[in-house]
């Protein structure tokens, strides 16, 4: 009698988890903007045997945004998943892998991310700040003020903005903007930039030095700004590509 087909793989089986780990590493390795994502749940797995020791695997993954920017050297396992009350962002990914002689490789992946609904967040935390759009004027004002504040006080390299990672605004009890953005060191010191910041250029890829800033601007009742910027140091092979104009 022909051998019975293997039992369908469960989503929590070690093999499914191994495939998901390869998929998540691939997704983060091929992402150039925003934050690293961590596995939250394996929604489904389908296996198409192709022959001896050769399977095609389709994974449906549910990911969650972490607090690590994609340019951060922090290993994913050390990245904290954004909490529910920080207005979490979920990623839904479909990944096609091949497993040959026990080794996984990703053939294709497609993801889309979406923030949790404001209602969900406010239901749990009525006063929590909610995600704002990147072109929100208070967001842009806060990012500009924070970067200028950092550059006016640092004795190190003059930093330029790469991208806004995320921004949240609280309206009560105080009016507060909380922003996170990625930066890069330029070939100027902060002092040189005072004379002519336009002349300052990002360092070439073989000397690049990226970093990350988080800032909080109290807008009401009285203005108060706190900024914290950290540079990662040069990371060979890590480059940043400006987002295409049409990407949101």
């Amino acid at each position, binding site marked *: 009698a022909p051998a019975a087909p293997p039992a*369908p*793989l*469960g*989503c*929590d*089986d070690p093999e*499914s988890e191994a495939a998901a780990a390869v998929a998540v590493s691939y997704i983060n390795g091929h992402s150039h903007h925003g934050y690293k994502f*961590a*596995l*939250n*749940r*394996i*929604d*489904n*797995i389908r296996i198409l045997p192709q022959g001896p020791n050769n399977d095609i695997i389709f994974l449906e993954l*549910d990911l*969650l945004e972490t607090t690590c920017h994609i340019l951060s050297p922090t290993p994913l396992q050390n990245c904290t*998943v954004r909490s*529910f009350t920080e207005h*979490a962002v*979920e990623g839904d990914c479909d990944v096609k892998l091949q497993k040959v002689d026990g080794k996984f490789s990703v053939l294709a992946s497609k993801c889309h991310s979406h923030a*949790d609904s404001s209602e*969900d967040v406010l239901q749990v935390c009525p006063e929590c700040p909610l995600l704002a759009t990147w072109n929100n004027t208070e967001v842009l004002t806060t990012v500009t003020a924070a970067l200028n504040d950092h550059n006016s006080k640092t004795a190190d390299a003059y930093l330029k903005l790469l991208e806004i990672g995320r921004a949240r605004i609280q309206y009560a009890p105080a009016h507060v903007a909380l922003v996170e953005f990625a930066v890069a060191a330029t070939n100027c010191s902060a002092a040189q930039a005072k004379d002519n910041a336009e002349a300052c250029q990002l360092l070439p890829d073989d000397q690049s030095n990226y970093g990350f800033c988080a800032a909080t601007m109290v807008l009401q009742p009285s203005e108060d700004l706190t900024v914290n910027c950290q540079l990662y140091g040069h990371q060979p092979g890590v480059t940043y590509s400006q987002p295409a104009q049409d990407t949101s």
Partner: protein
Amino acid sequence: PVAKRAVAEAAQHDKVPRPVGFVPPPPPCPGKIRHFKI
């Protein structure tokens, strides 16, 4: 409605008696939630 009695009776006989306290295994998918569901 006309029920095929024979089928109904056969179905009764085919039912495998479950041992007391039988707990069906969890569905293979979706898997466990590692953080929280939004």
